[in-house]
């Protein structure tokens, strides 16, 4: 198959290694990969900022780049950008009175897939170890991005593929379906609320004691990694009041993956028993909730394409093996 890579702007400019890993995986399955050079961005940043007039030429550029060349399917290492193609581009083009662009955008979007969607639904890859030779013998937790869950309805496509990597110890992330607080320009328009959401996401990731947190969207991983890095550097959650209602607890000792490890669960708010206000009934004000489970310094985020691309011959290193981490992202 001739596959057009839609790198997405953030991967192109910030995480070239994620695009390279995507190419590696697709080539390993025997497919030809092309990179339409005219591409830039899906336009989501402008659309979600209400800048429809400024989004239109960005959408037009995407459509132009992907209609200039012949290809069988387009693939992006991002659920959010692929969702924007289908859910937003035609809508906004129509809002701008550009019906031709709306139709062309819909056509491109129909043949564009998120990476695991493409691997699972189109190529029938369900066992990354067997089909891709994927090998990553480390403790990993997984954050499902909102747009993958709720716009593309990826279900367990991403987690299943990651779980099928040889040697991996995939531990469940408590409150995994909670948004990390990125939300594009939300993160700078409402930085305090965004940071409060991020702090809780980082707390739960720390509680898993995973080496890395993976996911399918570089934008969310940039955000989460940035929060992990800041906490590890300064010892506190900056940018928002240091309070939380997230409690992470060890509920049982079960076998997860290949190693025995604790099963973690998280609740928002307190259990009835300890639903006490600091200072209530004369008790001393206490720190209401700190992550109680293990904490590992040197955590990082990494896109799942790089875990799928990792093999015994050319393994992806983790921080504890001396891999470089920058701004909380695995390099």
């Amino acid at each position, binding site marked *: 198959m001739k596959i057009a890579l839609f*790198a997405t*702007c953030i*991967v*192109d*400019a*910030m995480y*070239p290694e994620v*695009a*390279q890993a995507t190419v590696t995986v697709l080539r390993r399955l025997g497919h030809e990969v092309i990179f339409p*050079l005219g591409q830039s961005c899906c336009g989501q940043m*402008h*659309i*979600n*900022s*209400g*800048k*429809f007039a*400024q989004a239109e030429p*960005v959408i037009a*550029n995407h459509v132009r780049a992907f209609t200039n060349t012949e290809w069988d399917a387009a693939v992006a290492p991002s659920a959010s950008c692929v969702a924007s193609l289908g859910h*937003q581009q035609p*809508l906004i083009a129509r809002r701008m009175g550009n019906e031709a662009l709306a139709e062309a955008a819909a056509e491109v979007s129909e043949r564009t897939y998120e990476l695991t969607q493409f691997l699972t639904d189109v190529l029938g890859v369900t066992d990354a170890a067997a089909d891709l030779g994927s090998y990553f013998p480390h403790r990993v937790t997984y954050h499902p991005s*909102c747009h993958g869950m*709720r*716009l593309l309805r990826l279900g367990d496509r991403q987690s299943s593929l990651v779980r099928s990597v040889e040697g991996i110890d995939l531990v469940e992330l408590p409150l995994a379906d909670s*948004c990390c607080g*990125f*939300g*594009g*320009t*939300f*993160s*700078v*328009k*409402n930085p*305090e*609320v*965004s*940071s409060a*959401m*991020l*702090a809780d996401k980082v707390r739960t990731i720390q509680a898993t004691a995973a080496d890395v947190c993976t996911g399918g969207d570089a934008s969310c991983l940039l955000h989460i*990694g*940035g929060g992990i*890095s800041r906490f590890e*550097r300064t010892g506190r959650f900056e*940018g928002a009041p240091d*309070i939380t*209602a997230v409690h992470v607890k060890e509920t049982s000792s079960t076998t997860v993956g290949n190693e025995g490890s604790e099963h973690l669960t998280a609740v*928002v*708010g*307190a259990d009835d028993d300890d*639903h006490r*206000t600091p200072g*209530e*009934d004369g008790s001393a004000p206490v720190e209401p909730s700190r992550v109680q489970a293990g904490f590992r310094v040197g955590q990082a985020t990494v896109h799942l394409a790089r875990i799928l691309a990792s093999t015994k011959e050319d393994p992806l290193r983790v921080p504890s093996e001396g891999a470089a981490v*920058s*701004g*909380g992202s695995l*390099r």
Partner: protein
Amino acid sequence: MTFLGMPLLPPKRRQQTDLPGGQGNIIEPESFPDVSHQHLSNQQLRNNIGHATSTIREKRADVVAELDDWEALREAGARTKNEVMANLPEYLTQFEEAFSAAGGIVHWARDADEANAIVTDLVADNAPVLENGRREVIKVKSMATQEIGLNEHLETAGIDAFETDLAELIVQLGEDKPSHILVPAIHRNRDEIRDIFMDKMPDAGQLTNEPAVLAEAARRHLRHKFLTTKVAISGANFGIAETGSLGVVESEGNGRMCLTLPETLITVMGIEKLLPRFADLEVFLQLLPRSSTGERMNPYTSFWTGRAEGDGPQNVHLVLLDNGRTRALADEHGRTALNCIRCSACMNVCPVYERTGGHAYGSTYPGPIGAILSPLLTGVEEQGNGSLPYASSLCGACYDVCPVKINIPEILVHLRGEDVQANHSPVSSQLDAALTGASWMMSDGKRMTATEKGLPLAHAVTRGEQINALPGIAGAWTSSRDIPALPNKSFRQLWAEEEGEK
């Protein structure tokens, strides 16, 4: 003010619609980031909300999972409400005829002022002046009367309105505002409630903070009011166009007391609350309790059709309230917000609401639905209401649980577009200017390529190190997040080099 040498221009004002906006308690006084700042650091609030929303969220998920036709029910609910909105004038006329034929009296109110004036006159006509020189009414929990600020208005007219819903009573006695549409006193704990009761209920006596003791104190306080007050004021969950019936769905039974004991019953209902047929309740009485309290069915469901001879209130009035609803209906991209049945499922799953609480939205309608409904009712030009559509990370959890399938994220984005047109220019802020520049760059792959050719230089300037602090609007990012070191080369540069070698 300039940014990157570009002058920051004041925004160009947009041509406004000539439909009047709503008034009353549907307006964010300042921008959401400023108002939410005051609430974000409240650990008590965070605990209470976290506890309540996670409990209700789980209950809802359980009872929804019991129904294998839940998606079909949502679809039917959305379709029915869309049908109402598409034919609202006809359904309203049909309703008025049926309600009047059954002995009820219909009043039409354009806005909050008109509605308040109508209700005040009706109370003056029907409630006696008591020894203290004032009149009294009892109230059923109602969003519409919160929206128009009825209690405050009545107070100035010498009328004391007593809330009978337990949580609304707590809010009222505490001289406070509701922070959740289903659990209005969600921000209060038991100790605070005990103190409020002992302070504000003349007959309360000494109380402990046990829920049963507090409930009993409220029961004694209210029972007397039910038996002696001549006028009750309610809202309505549904109005049935076919039969002229009104309905209230509640948990405590206090609503039922208000709806049956007094001589005069005045209901204030938004014009969007109609359903075409009585049979439509089959769908809505499954959707509402399961989405709202996480119950299969709520304990008390009351319906009345005008006046029943010799039974219940003999003087039955309805105030049909517009207050910006026609304005919202005229917005083709936002009008489905009027489908809302006030279940509060969206706020119980919202990560923003969970952290800021309801007061941060400045409106009777908080959370995701409030972030679209308030600006739709008033227009984005109204004070801080233009900032409400940005109070969301667009995670989409609200849309997933909405029983009438209001695509809240899509309407949020639409209203951001309205705000941009009304309140921003391409360079009216640093963020606006940055997006304007990004649009120019991203509209052409060649410009993107050229821009990325600056990466090796940027990489060198930052010495290949991660970025921990940035000035200006980017500082909002680095307030809590580090940024990875810039790569030496972009993917497209690496690709071009690799392809060049072949």
